[in-house]
């Protein structure tokens, strides 16, 4: 019954605003049942406000025009009227109850994340998202891919300026996907307007939300909770695909993960580690330590010509693996694999004038993580 009431709200309220939606003036209708319910609630409460506003401001402006001192209006002296006052207390209560009923139904539905077909762990990190397909051994981080030159105005900004990532979250349509959401550092908020999912990711907590997407497509959003200096550069991109396509993609990712796991045991050449390390560094480390390793004091120390780093290999690996407690440096032992850590350590020890010549093998890092 609630459902049909909401559908009715939705249909009546979308009337006449399709144009507004297309122009990006209004909340998107979205591609889930919940997002459409929310849109219906939004438009319903909007029209309630419009009607009340027209009546109240109508009386007000009528009075302002009609009862002007300059036109010789004589003031009445009435100053209370019990039945009118009771009436305009009671009517708003009834309107509010009328709004609360469908809102309650939608909210209950949003909170029912049971019986999901797929669980995805979403972890916020300054300033990227990590996605883990639970039970599938597939995990990756998703970084903004808009180049710095576009932000600085040195290149033309493309259509999805600030809303593009290196690896989108890939989800199947028509399946209930449960999100388990947490954070490694500060509070972030994972938001995709067209999915109507916005949920804080909080260190020490695991929040739940869910989505069942009706249409394939690419849906973009952003971090919604101020999370530090690069809060504005932490987009979310969801790529919703047909179920078969999703299965193929997942299988490919699993295989790639296995390949990567095998890479831990083999001996890597320095140039391979340097190449890999540079891509990891630019994706993960450069947002704080800067692309040239110069850092940004006082929070983010320089890595180039950093004596402590150059003279102490063990200390260096430990910082990357375990992070620095009480400071912005996170522990990467669970977000980067041993190959990536070995590569990025090798890279930082041999880039920007750091000429240690050290080569760190993934096996050594794996051993360190195991300790």
């Amino acid at each position, binding site marked *: 019954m609630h459902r049909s009431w909401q559908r009715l709200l939705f249909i009546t309220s979308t009337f006449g605003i399709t144009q507004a939606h297309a122009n990006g003036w209004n909340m998107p209708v979205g591609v889930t049942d919940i997002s459409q319910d929310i849109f219906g609630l939004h438009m319903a409460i909007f029209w309630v406000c419009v009607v009340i506003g027209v009546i*109240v401001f109508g009386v007000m402006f009528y009075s302002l025009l009609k009862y002007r001192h300059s036109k010789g209006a004589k003031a009445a002296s009435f100053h*209370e009227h019990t039945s009118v006052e009771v009436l305009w207390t009671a009517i708003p209560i009834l309107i509010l109850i009328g709004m609360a009923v469908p809102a309650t139904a939608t909210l209950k539905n949003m*909170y029912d994340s049971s019986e999901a077909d797929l669980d995805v762990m979403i972890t916020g990190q300054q300033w990227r998202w990590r996605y883990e397909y639970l039970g599938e051994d597939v995990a990756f981080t998703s970084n903004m891919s808009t180049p710095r030159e576009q932000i600085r*105005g040195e290149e033309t900004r493309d*259509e999805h300026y600030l809303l593009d990532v290196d690896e989108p979250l890939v989800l199947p349509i028509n399946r209930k996907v449960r999100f388990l959401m947490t954070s490694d550092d500060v509070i972030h908020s994972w938001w995709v307007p067209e999915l109507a999912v916005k949920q804080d990711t909080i260190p020490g907590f695991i929040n739940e939300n869910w989505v069942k997407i009706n249409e394939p497509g690419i849906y973009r959003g952003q971090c919604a909770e*101020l999370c*530090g200096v690069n809060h504005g*550069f932490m987009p979310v991109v969801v790529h919703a695909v047909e179920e078969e396509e999703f299965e193929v993609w997942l299988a490919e990712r699993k295989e790639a993960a296995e390949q990567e796991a095998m890479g831990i045991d083999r001996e890597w050449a320095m140039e391979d580690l340097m190449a890999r390390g540079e891509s990891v560094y630019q994706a993960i480390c450069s947002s704080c330590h800067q692309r040239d390793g110069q850092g940004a004091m006082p929070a983010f120390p320089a890595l180039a010509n950093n004596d402590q780093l150059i003279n102490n290999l063990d200390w260096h690996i430990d910082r990357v693996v375990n992070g620095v407690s009480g400071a912005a440096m996170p522990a990467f032992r669970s977000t980067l694999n041993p190959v990536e850590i070995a590569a990025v350590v090798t890279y930082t020890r041999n880039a920007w004038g750091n000429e240690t010549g050290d080569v760190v093998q993934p096996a050594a890092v794996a051993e360190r993580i195991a300790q």
Partner: protein
Amino acid sequence: MAPKLPPQHSLQHSSTAVAGGHSQHGHAAQPKGIMRWLLTTNHKEIGSLYLIFSLVMFFVGGMFALVVRAELFQPGLQLVEPEFFNQMTTMHGLIMVFAAVMPAFTGLANWMIPLQIGAPDMALPRLNNFSFWLLPVAFTLLLSTLFMPGGGPNFGWTFYAPLSTTYAPPSTTFFILALHIAGISSILGAINIIATILNMRAPGMRMMDMPLFVWTWLITAFLLIAVMPVLAGVITMMLMDINFGTSFFDAAGGGDPVLFQHLFWFFGHPEVYIMILPAFGIVSAIIPTFARKPLFGYASMVYATAAIALLSFLVWAHHMFIVGLPLTAELFFMYSTMLIAVPTGVKVFNWVTTLFRGSISFESPMLFALAFVVLFTIGGFSGLMLAIAPADFQYHDTYFVVAHFHYVLVPGAIFAIMAGVYYWLPKWTGHYPNERLAQCHFWCSIIGVNLTFFPMHFAGLAGMPRRIPDYALQFADFNLLSSIGAFFFGASQLIFVLVVVMCVRGGKKAPAKAWEGAEDLEWSVPSPAPLHTFETPPVFNRTHHHD
């Protein structure tokens, strides 16, 4: 409304007392120059100090806002780095809330509450001096953090942990100290106001005879006393986390980042009403004056204010709909928040009904009060939309929220303050403000405020998050308009300063009762109000409609 003016003999009384005041007291020579202002215990002088301080801070906070708007003028990073941008958004909020709006209302309270209740001064004049002089200390300290290594606070005026603790710049400890000092100032000010209102009303003036500005401030003062200690508690917990190794808000040490938000908003929601209830009082004085008709529903205005104040303690988690509260908590806070619309609606209906069948003129105080009613109500409507918890999952932390709270705070609280200033300037200075310039200020402000904040509704609905230094291209048009509006609004406020300065220096002379329809006791003393008034209490003449 029957006039509340005291009988003529009491008027005589107070003015003779003024004339002879100084010599009778036999004080040693009054301090001159700076010492006069440092040591003053006079409610009018302290009121002026509060108002001047608040005006200066309004421009400081405004400059910060313009830095933000300049950076957001178009996509890309052009003027400032994100780190400094975050300091600007944070400082803008902190300064406007704690150093501009709150002291402005305290200044008006200092000036007007004794005059409106027929008291010679505040109940605790030396405490009054201390409350004020804490503020320049607090905010000099706060502003000095901008020049410290690592910069000033950069975590938003809501300073959510752990961004404001584990990940905060080193200056955060100074920020905490500054807020402590400002909080002490507020608590002492509130105690003073309560003591004054409860003990020093003119003989014959009962609680239900008090002007609504006095009523709303009385309720506001209780809110302050209730929640400022909570703020002090939460920032002390931050202090411990930062400097003494505790883990109140650090999950790694078993702490709870969500606890911070519960504590902050238990303070923060009443805080937003602290910034609006006195505004209700001002508007409730001005509308009847210029409609020449008694305020409709005086008693229901008082009850509605009290109801809003009580509800303000029960709605805090509507700021936290997406932190993962249990369903029952979401429902409770959604319903309680929606309920606020009822007493707020009563107030708006009462103002509109006061206008109905009045005899209305449109002097500058009235223009600002009318704009308040319309634009505050628009902010109330978006507030009602935000109360719908499922929809808030889309609105939360977007520019829709920014639009909402700026509508209730700028054309809400700040327009009410300006209305009050224009309304009472004749009483303070003995001159009417220049009406042409004041009207020019009004129309520029109306255009500026709507151009700045109305497009933010659309930017937010279209998906633009708050507190970002750069944005996707589809938000460019809205931001362009907002930035133009902000600079226009900011420049318009220079007219306000001009009007005030001109009014202090001269202008059309105002009689004791400066506005034809004005009824309250402050209009019984001469304009400008002498330094000492009501040294002999007036006899309050109760022929009042709500007996």
